[in-house]
């Protein structure tokens, strides 16, 4: 039986010491909106850390106390066809420190656009299914926000071009999804004319290392309930370590390994409405905070063709 709609999800993942880079989870999952279905999603997420890795050294910082970032995200996901979706998202991010004198910052972060295509879907026997997805994405700062006040900056200020490949295997109601993506991150312009990385650089342009995100998810999936656990690893290719007692910087090396749980539930009485929640924790990292976070959101799906 083909369900009326397929759920989408949003979550926040943390890349870096700054505010969690808004990360549209549904570009990384193995789910698609059906043809002419539009999903409108809204979510709130919160993550915080009181310890971080300065290079490989784990430390606290009494002048930051607990760093926290909260975010409100709006997202649209439209099914052009059953095997071709487009998505747009934009988060509003606020950052705060609990100690010290540093101000928090807030504002609209990066506008993201994704195209998700499913070239392969094969069914084996009565209960096995293998799908392959390809995702292309582009995100850009919605405005010229302040990137040079890490860790309280709301984002990295880079234009990111993403390519992702997802393989999903489903056996009855259990599934496993593996994905890998490469993030081409454009250089960033800062407000200063010189800065020090591992040497003095006389420019306002900052060379940004590219990044990769690798993820494995597994769990239970029906058209109405999804419960899953995941582990992901994000890393930059290049960058440099924060020096002893220095401030973090936008082009630092930023690596992290995170684990999380995520669930979606669609109301039997009102199948267009879904509830969505997730929680995660950073296990290991480099130049990132050891974040603990959660999100909660709602999903509402409508069939655009039908309403015409």
């Amino acid at each position, binding site marked *: 039986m083909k369900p009326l709609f397929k759920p989408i999800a949003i979550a926040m993942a943390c890349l870096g010491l700054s505010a969690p880079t808004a990360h549209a989870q549904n570009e990384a999952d193995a789910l698609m909106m059906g043809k002419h279905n539009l999903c409108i999603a809204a979510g709130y997420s919160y993550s915080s850390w009181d310890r971080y890795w300065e290079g490989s050294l784990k430390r606290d910082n009494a*002048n930051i106390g607990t760093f926290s970032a909260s975010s409100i995200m709006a997202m649209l996901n439209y099914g052009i066809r059953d095997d071709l979706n487009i998505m747009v998202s934009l988060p509003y991010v606020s950052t705060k420190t609990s100690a010290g004198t540093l101000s*928090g910052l807030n504002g609209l972060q990066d506008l993201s656009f994704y195209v998700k295509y499913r070239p392969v879907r094969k069914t084996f026997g009565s209960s096995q299914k293998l799908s392959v997805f390809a995702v292309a994405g582009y995100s850009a700062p919605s405005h010229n926000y302040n990137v040079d006040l890490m860790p309280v900056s709301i984002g990295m200020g880079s234009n990111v071009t993403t390519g992702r490949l997802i393989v999903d295997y489903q056996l009855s109601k259990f599934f496993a999804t593996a994905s890998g993506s490469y993030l081409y991150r454009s250089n960033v312009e800062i407000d200063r004319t010189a800065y*020090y990385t591992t040497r003095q650089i006389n420019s306002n342009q900052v060379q940004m290392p590219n990044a990769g995100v690798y993820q494995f998810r597994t769990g239970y999936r029906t058209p109405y309930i999804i419960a899953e656990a995941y582990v992901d690893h994000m890393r930059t290719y290049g960058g440099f370590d924060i020096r*002893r*007692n220095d401030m973090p910087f936008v082009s630092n090396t930023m690596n992290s390994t995170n684990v999380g749980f995520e669930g979606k539930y669609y109301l039997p009485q009102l199948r267009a409405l879904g509830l969505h929640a997730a929680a995660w924790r950073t296990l290991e990292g480099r130049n990132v905070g050891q974040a603990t976070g959660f999100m909660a959101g709602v999903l509402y799906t409508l069939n655009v063709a039908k309403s015409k």
Partner: protein
Amino acid sequence: MKKLFTYASLILLASSIAACNKDIKEYNEDFPALQPAKVDATAGNWKPLVITSTEEFNLPAPEATSSAAYQKELDDLKALSSNLTSDQREIINYWKVGSVLRWNEIMRELVAKHNLPPYQNPDGTYPIPSAANPFSYPQFPFSNPPYAARAYAYVSAAQYDALVAAWHFKYKYNRQAPYKTASGITVSVPKSDLPSYPSEDAVVAGASFEIMKLLFPADIDYIKQKAEEEKQYRMLAGVNVASDVIAGDSLGRWVARKVVARAKTDGMGAAVGNATVWKKLEDDCIAKGETPWYSLEIPKRPPMLPVFGNVKPMMFAAADVASIRPPAPPATNSEIMKKEVAEVLDFTKNASRERMRIVNYWADGVGTYTPPGHWNAIATTEFVKNQYSEVRWARNYALLNASLMDAAIVCWNTKYYYFNARPCQLDGRIKTLTGVPNFPAYISGHSTFSGAAATILAFLVPSKAKDFEDMANEASMSRMYGGIHYRSDCSEGLITGQKVGNYAVERAKIDGAN
């Protein structure tokens, strides 16, 4: 539909590949080769800053150009200057932009590298970097703004005095450049009528090495490598024979040792103070009925270089500092102070992106070349348009950096004389958009540095006077926008800086270089 997706993917792919070259172009890559408009032939008579006379260095006369020894040097030079490797060409292309300019860039890099406050000890006290043990954590130095201002000043003074001495001997012995008397030398940089003995580049390399190893002892290998490279460059480029270089190196070092001697007795050694000094500053302030400054860092960090205000200035006597020091700031409980606190709170609550840009542009905080370094960078981009001789480059930096060091001395003297609180100490609602410096507020260091720099730079490059003044005003305001200074800190800082800068202007009028 499939086509649409294919096209979209292709566009994305193409745009990302087009943008794949991420190499940064630095603004100093475009600086032209130095080709001085004037040789400044009388610079041997310019007034030096630290040394008393150029004749106190007994630089021996060079061999005659007709001598066998010199002819041998010419043959070596012919061989060396032809068939350059690409590495050797790179060395030439780096140094040909100008010796004094490049050492200024190296200084800015070392200041930025070492401008990191030490991390606290487990018991909440802070370690103090030790010149006797520069390699272990915390590395010596912590090149904070006063340290940096003094370091830039001494390097510039050593280079300037050494070049004045070099010019003296150049015209005393008047040995022409090798390419003037011999053919067959491949010359890779602009030619000049300047006598070549001693080599001005070797003078600067020797002087820089000698003073910088005192200031940045942990980087001695790097400094040495640069100095050796520069001396090599003059021969690779076919413009100095070995004896020009050896004489220049010796002269540069001799002169710099005089500056080292000054640096060792200028009072810097006592600038850190001790627990008794720190306590007394607080007690004296309370005795005046004012709210004393305290460190806003956790754990509380001892104040930055509280006795730096007693360091011996460059352009006036230590006894003059008190007369330049501005009058007291508004009392903590005064109506004016309440208004000024409210103004800072308002700036931080209503921070626009443009104000944040100004805060960031002028922040020059942890991990940067500091405000004195920023003004050196600003000066460099102007100086480089004017094709100065090396000695004039050095003189202009020396005037600028002497002003900045004196500005640091007067400013620090003022800060610890009044010892007043930062805005977020008086009103906890004030959250800052840049780091809060760990020393009292009055007067603003940025404002004092900028007032001094803009004043002397306006004299040196009059066509840009208005720009320098605008920059100084913006630098000053940035500290209010950032939430770390009151208006009176900034306005009095600018005025005080201008007073300091005027000492350099008065000297510049009579140093023989006009």
